[in-house]
């Protein structure tokens, strides 16, 4: 009964919204023009990066905070020490060992490329995290226990740097108001910090979680 009702509601919603979508005219405001016009002043030439770290950089700042929160919450609910890693086949381990430096290189490239073309801190961080997860899966990297000071610093460094710069830029008149000349450099610095921390955080989402292997009875 409930299933049927929900199904009907969902269908009605799709038809109604879909219909309204199709008959929609052009938007009142087009930000594409504004983005293009201000792109030169943003410090980067790739529009998505410009939006992400300059025009709407404040969103990104808060978004990193969301990631940190998720990490904190995960730490708060998993208090077991990490289990010993289960080693995979030596061949797999060798492949993973070989892949890791390559992935780090890819991450650095993505970070650097972000200013001009697709790529940036998030993608680079994700690749770093993927490397860590890979190492963990083949048994070369143990799951993480309660983070020590160095790991905590690493997890927060990118965010702290971003936050500190954002606050320091208040001297320019507004939060995150880059001086046009230094914008490119500052964005690269922020992205570099974020890449490391995001890599650690995203890896942490996996490695902190994977501690309760073997169960608890």
């Amino acid at each position, binding site marked *: 009964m409930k299933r049927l009702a929900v199904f009907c509601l969902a269908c009605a919603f799709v038809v*109604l*919204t879909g*219909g*309204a*979508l199709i*008959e*929609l*005219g052009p*938007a*009142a*405001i*087009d*930000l594409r023009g*504004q*983005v293009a016009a*201000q792109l030169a002043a943003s410090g980067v030439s790739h529009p998505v990066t410009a939006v992400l770290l*300059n*025009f*709407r*950089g*404040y*969103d990104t*700042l*808060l*978004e990193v*905070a*969301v990631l*940190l*929160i*998720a990490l*904190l*919450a995960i*730490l*708060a*609910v998993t*208090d077991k020490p990490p289990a010993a890693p289960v080693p995979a086949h030596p061949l797999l381990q060798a492949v993973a060992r070989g892949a890791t430096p390559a992935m780090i290189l890819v991450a650095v490239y993505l970070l650097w490329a972000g200013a001009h073309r697709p790529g940036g801190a998030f993608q680079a961080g994700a690749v770093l995290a993927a490397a860590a997860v890979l190492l963990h899966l083949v048994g070369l990297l143990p799951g993480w226990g*309660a983070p020590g*000071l160095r790991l*905590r*610093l690493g*997890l*927060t460094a990118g*965010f*702290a740097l971003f*936050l500190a710069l*954002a*606050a320091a830029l*208040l001297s*320019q*008149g*507004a*939060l*995150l*108001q*880059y001086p046009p000349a230094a914008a490119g450099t500052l964005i690269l610095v922020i992205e570099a910090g974020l890449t490391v921390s995001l890599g650690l955080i995203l890896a942490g989402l996996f490695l902190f979680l994977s501690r309760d292997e073997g169960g608890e009875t």
Partner: protein
Amino acid sequence: MADPLVGLVLLPLGWATLAFVLGPGRGAWAALAGIAAQAWLAWLLAAQVGAGGTARHAVGGWGAPLGIDLAADGLSAALLLLTQWLALGVALYARSYFAAGDPARRYFWPLAGFLLAGLNALFVANDLFNLYVTLELVGLAAVGLVAAAGGERQIAAALRYLFAALAGSGLYLFGVALVYGVYGTVSIATLAPLITPEAPRLVWIAGGLMALGLVVKSALFPFHFWLPPAHGGAPAPVSALLSALVVKASFYLLLRLWLGPFAPLAPAAAWLPALLGAAAIFWGSWRAIRAERLKPLIAWSTVAQLGYLFLIFPLLAVPAAFGAGVMQVFAHALAKAALFAAAGVFIQATGQDTVAGLAGAAARLPVTLFAIGLAGMTLAGLPPSAGFLAKWQLIEAALALGHWPIAVVALAGGLMAAVYVFRVLRQAFCLAPAGAPVAAVPRALEWTAFALAAASVLLGFFGVDLMTLIEVRA
């Protein structure tokens, strides 16, 4: 911090990060110092808004719609003031509340810091997508705080809470996506003149979905199912923050959108929230009256008290209704924080939280008992509390428009609240069972609970100041 608007967001982000770096369980002093500074900033902001009108800050210097604008009118300033001062009380309480080995303490300070940052960011946001991010910030931090207690019940409650919060913010985000599709912007200030009663059908759908999402997050009946286990199961300081502030945040946003960009569409649906609000009052009060344990009782009372907030929607044509809503937010926040704090004292003193179990302890913890009494006055809307002023304005607005059933609901709800409040209070006068052990409780706990409760009553004498502040509209 040059601009209080920005400082209120950056400060908690900063000390939350610091608290995490310092290590599990540390950072109480950083938190207290930070919150005290925030309280001062909120005070500055309220003075600034009261004197000079809406405060604005264009992040990055771009300005909407390309950049993100922060803005605080009277309503934002008032809620920021409430948030910081209430958080100061709860923080003082929490510092003494957690025992050294309590798992809930390990990440309390950083999570609380991010929660406050999210709330403050939400109150100053003026951009629909930025608001989505702040909603997630608040939601995940709140879930984390509930889950940190680590018990099976709390984890289950946190999971249920998380799904409700995610469903709510998902609905909201979908609405935002539609709005951006129609108008090409998510800046509230830019949208406001664009939305008219002749808006395309998609805008109506978007508004409905956003409202639905926010209603789920504000735990309006019948979407309240997640609230009692989460608020009733969390440690006392967490329950206090959640019941007092977190549910109010999504209500604030709903009100802001309702009165702001979506005002041309809003009247069509005004009675629906009011009907659900009335149902929430009766169902929540009934469950509170029937509850056997103290914290679930208080949590169900939150379900009921949130109902009042939604009664104002059909009345918003009268200024008193808006005043009633804000006053109720303040009254309930202070009173509910006080009640959860007081419940925490009793739980620490007796090791259990049944209502009947209070009989022995109440007489030995008179300050806490008074806190419950004063907070109870506010909840039941008895004079001279802030809750009474809220009820007064609500009834006045209802009569002014001839919607007397709302007045009847408000009065009946007040009586039901009196029933569950006095169910607790009368335990203090029952003859105590002999030899019930009552452990010593830090005095700071008792007095912070009392201070919060006293504030909820004393605010009843300063309604004019609050009303003057919130009259500053964007």
